[in-house]
């Protein structure tokens, strides 16, 4: 059986590829400076690497990452002596556990949508992004400079591709006799 203490470099890279951007955007909810967010998330990955516990699966490592980033944001804000109303609100939102769940839920939805949209051809990508924002076909056509009929066709093909992707169990493997 495989024995291991902590993650290998390639396992860490796998997690990094999947969650880095998401965690940066998550931190960006609390800290306005993007550079500061990136720096802090990178530290969280370094921390995960040095953490000599065994995470049984990706989800536990992911929980660790979200929680670490949240704590780091909290510390940064607490350390900043700026006691304005904005900072007070942010601290409040970082202390509320229910809010934390909601923030993670939203980031995870975005992450999976982004991952799925990235696999689409260019024009379909653009159409889906607008459609998810609630744009109507004619508005999408105007925005992208293409005919409504083309928008309709590409949009329905794109949704078909996305449906096929989410219909399966996704990353979890599943094999059944057909």
């Amino acid at each position, binding site marked *: 059986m*495989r024995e291991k203490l902590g993650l290998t*470099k390639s396992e*860490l890279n796998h997690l*990094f*590829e999947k969650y*880095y*951007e998401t965690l940066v*955007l998550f931190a960006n909810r609390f800290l306005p400076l*993007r550079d500061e967010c*990136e*720096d802090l*998330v*990178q*530290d969280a*990955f*370094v921390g995960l*690497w*040095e953490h000599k516990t065994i995470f049984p699966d990706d*989800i536990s490592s992911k*929980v660790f990452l979200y929680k670490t980033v949240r704590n780091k944001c909290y510390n940064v804000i607490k350390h900043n002596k700026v006691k304005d109303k904005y900072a007070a609100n942010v601290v409040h939102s970082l202390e509320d556990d*229910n809010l934390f*769940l*909601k923030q*993670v*839920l*939203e980031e*995870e*939805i*975005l992450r*999976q*949508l*982004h991952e799925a*949209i990235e*696999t689409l*051809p260019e*024009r*379909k990508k653009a159409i889906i*992004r607008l459609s*998810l*924002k*609630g744009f109507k076909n004619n508005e999408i056509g105007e925005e992208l400079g293409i005919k409504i009929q083309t928008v309709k066709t*590409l949009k329905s*093909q794109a949704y078909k*591709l*996305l*449906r*096929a*992707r*989410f219909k*399966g*169990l*996704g*990353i*979890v*493997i*599943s*094999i*059944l*006799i*057909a």
Partner: protein
Amino acid sequence: MKDIFHISRLIIKKKLKVLTDSEKQELKQFQEDYPSLKDVEIKALADRLSGYSSIDKEKAWRAVVSKSLEKDDRPKLRLLKNSWFKYAAVFAVCLITLAYFYRNKAFDSVETTPTTVDKKIIEPGADKATLTLENGSSVFLEKGSAFQNQNANSDGVQIVYEPTKENPSIVVYNYLTVPRGGEFFLELSDNTKVWLNSESQLKYPVQFIENETRHVELVYGEAYFDVSSSTEHGGAKFKVLNLSQEVEVIGTEFNIKAYNDENIVYTTLVEGKVVVDNGNNRQPLLPSQQSSVDRTSKKTAVKEVDVYEETAWRNGVFSFRGKPLKDIMKVISRWYDVNVIFENKNLESIKFKGILSKNQDIEEILSIMKSSSINEYEITDKTIKLK
């Protein structure tokens, strides 16, 4: 907390209208348990999707690696200054080596179950390829090895050819060869994007001559093409050649599968318009259609296919909907670089459906198959026997 990840998926499925009845129930229950999470809505979130494109992930990864190296080095150096620690370290290494030999020996004397011993030999594939240059020399590309010349730039996991500055007078070719257990991304000088699957070879011009038909050749294997529109290149057509067929492209995305050990060449159109010419007849394709050219009879057939399934390999998964095990094992053998032997020939035609992650350990895949219909499997070296 762990539910959150599952629920996030259900919310997306709800938006796409693909929830099953039991999932609907599950989501409803969850929203009753956590009323504060009820108002999460995709429409309100979609604006934030653009945040993803503004992050430089490669730079960030290098930062993570160098940060952890800094942390690693400091305590070690300090410890090694104490001379007793040096001796202790040497002693520890000896002990570990001894233990290792002892362990192996202990294993040898007992009847070994091959699966445990060979576990490390079989690994999922990764980004790698051999680049053959115009002067015949070759460069091996993989993660961590960068390459650069006047035409191309590679960070080891993909290669990008610079757009043409001056119109070249003659066409110069490079080859990209992806071994078993590999895949690779290539961007040609006309901005056409190509994803090459395991065991594939592409021959392509370093630069294209302006206003002339752009030719590339899929010598063998499988590739997904996202061809830059001919309107951007003075109407110059794009053609993908292969021993058995020629695909004429108008500006579009499609997948060609032409393995030497398969008698049929498949072309699947995702978007746009192509014409498949097998020398005898010209077959136009519509999106979601797949042509199959029989190499011996030279006949072409066309059918509707699930585009996602046919091109899933490009997205880190293999998707099979009712494919015979023989076909599934062919795909697996190329990605994990293994030989598969069917000792029980009846197994070849059993159909499976499912989605496999390309990061999956091969044994996890086999053990699931085992639980459903394969009686026993055996792994020796790089050979898997199905019994």
